[in-house]
């Protein structure tokens, strides 16, 4: 047994010492070569290299390594705007390997011409890659896609309509009527996307559709409608938004508070009646928004004995008073320093 132990130890030592030396050399030599390569300037795509890349990008890959080589070739050709790039990317989009189709989406975003946009929208319809990733590439190309997005709003697939409505956000001049119609879509995700996009627009139809969705039975549609109402309607949306402060869903209440904060001091008149609402969430929420828009600090500094301030504290709780006192105390000190 003794000699067995000794023999095993010798074999292990020999093997591991060799491995350690070999790995150390590989690390150091590899690093030096990498540093040298990094310093050499990048070359333009030559004809011979282009032919090699086209061959590599056309080849279906059976191995992992092959797939990544194909991806690298596709990217290089797309960046160099090689004439074969579009054909190869179209083929790559249809590849069953999600890595290849995903890389094609990215390369099409790099190309960014009308053909590329058509292919990206086709990929979006057919879900050739995660739709959010395709959408990110389409949006990156704004304002080129523009009108090409409108057919998406009429697609049979609700997911495509959702993305169509979402991607129209940077184009306030496009698809207004269609978006208003989509606020009545049977699919709640489409309604939510449509109302979110309408939030950056104007007009009575958009305002009416947004207000209607504040009462949608699906909670996340109400969330998007609340955000939109704040942006689209401003102070006019206040009375409708404050009603959402007592919504059964926390996320809807939060969205309503965010929207009211966004409206700013113009929301005060809508918020004040909520301070005595029967619902505790509504009272808390109204007091919190009044605090966040600076109304509480204004009263505390200018009219500290105001009964209104007491009403806000009663709705917001003792900690709201303490926090306000700390803030206003600091501001008073700052004012004195400035005056001095």
């Amino acid at each position, binding site marked *: 047994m003794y000699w067995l132990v000794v023999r095993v130890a*010798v074999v292990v030592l020999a093997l591991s010492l060799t491995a350690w030396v070999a790995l150390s050399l590989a690390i150091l030599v590899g690093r030096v070569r990498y540093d040298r390569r990094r310093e050499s300037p990048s070359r333009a795509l030559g004809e011979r290299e282009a032919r090699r890349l086209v061959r590599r990008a056309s080849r279906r890959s059976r191995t992992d390594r092959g797939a*990544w080589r194909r991806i690298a070739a596709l990217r290089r050709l797309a960046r160099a705007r090689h004439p074969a790039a579009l054909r190869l990317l179209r083929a790559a989009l249809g590849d069953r390997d999600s*890595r290849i189709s995903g890389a094609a989406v990215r390369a099409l975003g790099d190309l960014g011409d009308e053909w590329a946009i058509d292919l990206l929208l086709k990929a979006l319809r057919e879900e050739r890659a995660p739709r959010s990733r395709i959408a990110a590439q389409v949006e990156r190309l704004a304002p080129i896609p523009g009108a090409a997005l409108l057919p998406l709003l009429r697609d049979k697939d609700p997911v495509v309509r959702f993305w169509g409505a979402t991607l129209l956000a940077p184009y306030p001049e496009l698809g207004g009527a269609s978006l208003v119609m989509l606020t009545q879509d049977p699919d709640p995700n489409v309604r939510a996307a449509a109302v979110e996009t309408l939030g950056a627009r104007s007009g009575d139809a958009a305002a009416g559709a947004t207000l209607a969705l504040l009462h949608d039975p699906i909670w996340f549609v109400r969330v998007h409608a609340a955000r939109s109402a704040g942006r689209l309607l401003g102070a006019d949306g206040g009375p409708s938004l404050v009603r959402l402060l007592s919504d059964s869903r926390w996320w809807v209440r939060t969205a309503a508070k965010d929207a009211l904060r966004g409206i700013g001091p113009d929301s005060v008149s809508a918020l004040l009646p909520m301070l005595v609402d029967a619902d505790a969430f509504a009272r808390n929420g109204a007091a919190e928004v009044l605090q966040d828009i600076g109304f509480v600090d204004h009263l505390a500094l200018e009219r500290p004995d105001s009964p209104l301030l007491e009403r806000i504290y009663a709705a917001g709780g003792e900690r709201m008073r303490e926090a306000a006192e700390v803030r206003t105390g600091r501001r008073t000190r700052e004012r004195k320093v400035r005056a001095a």
Partner: protein
Amino acid sequence: MTGGFTGELLGWVVVFCLGYLLLTNLVYVVLVFVAAFENGVRRDESASEDYDTLATSRFTIPVSVVLAAYDEETAIVPTIRSLLALDYPEHEVIVVNDGSTDATLDRLRETFQLEPYEVFVRRVFQTEEVHAVYRSAEHPNLVVVDKANGGKADALNAGLNVARYRYVCGVDADTVFDPDALLKGMRRVVHDPARIVGVTSHLTIALDPGRTMAAPPGTRPIDRRPLVAYQHLDYLRAFFNNRLAWSRLGFMLCAVGAFQIWRRDVLEEVGGYSRTFTCEDIELTFRVHERFLREGRDYEIHCLPDNVGTTEGPDSVRKLIAQRERWQRVIDETVWHFRRMWFNPRYGSVGLIGAPFYLVTEVLAPAVELTALVALIAAVALGLFQPGVFILMLAAIAFMNAALTACAILLDDVQSRTYRTRDLARLLLLAPLDLVLYRPLIFWARQKGSWRFLRGDKAWHKFERNARAPAA
């Protein structure tokens, strides 16, 4: 080997211990090959990733970064600055001051111009009392929650109550992050948010993370002190030789506390961070696996090879032992708590490989190491083993470890090219001496940890932060 019954017994003990060592190292060698494959796949994936679009698109999933801080006055400001500087389209930073007894809150108030506000939040998790919530006049995405002390898990749960986004990234107060950390961490998630519920990534170690991270990748230094260099090697081995392989094999069992991204609905479903364990990260990872596998749900938890930040390492032997003792204890607690998963086919690769791997290489290791040490010393003392053979065995073990360490250094360098060539050379030379210079400390810490686990000690024993130059 002679000497009657005692000699025979000692011989068998030595053979058993050597067998254990050979077996575990054989497993590590297999894991290194798997890790190398995973590293290559992730590297290629990262190279083809469109980080520019990811960093600017409104379709990139927003993240709430939650940081628990207890007595972190020296480390917290650089950490928060690095979090606020993250290159990510939409993220919020929630700092929870867990009843610090030092000037942590004062430092935060001064540096970030904090003001108290009353904020009504969801109380999804019960926590110790929240004293106040602060917002920064300078950074609208910074929220500071001041609460009564309840431990790190309690503080993270308080942060989760405030978090608004679908993904939550738990981080440590002593870690300084790369500006791309969140992009790197979320790049896998955005491709498949329905399946990927958790992600962690590679972190390195330094005495002063802020200063180390100030150097650009490629020229980043590794501390010259051997204690720190060995901790650095330890981290490399843990991330590259183990966690990457576990990730590929479907049993990534430790999303590290310093950088752990979780889908918030999953955290809510499993009840958030647990306060009943010494430390929260490994237990939570086990719990998520247990829940999803028990219910037969499709999910993934990943460890990525990208270097996302640098965390503070202990600068003295005493602090290192205190830290590693705690790590050993939490591993023991977790593996024991989830013992129903051991060798249980219902839990797939986690039950059949991951949990037993932890049991054999982490929980039982201190006992085997102690036995081996006593047996070898006794064998040499009784003249059953010649000192030359003893040294030969030590050399074999040392170079076996050194070869595995070199694999980890190679995988890291191929992935990130972060460090200077001369520092890599120094690490490679230090590797064979790990057994005599560093392992004895870890051996002692693990013995202490195991003993304290058996005694039911669950105290944190936080190590005192390193002294450093004041933040600019």
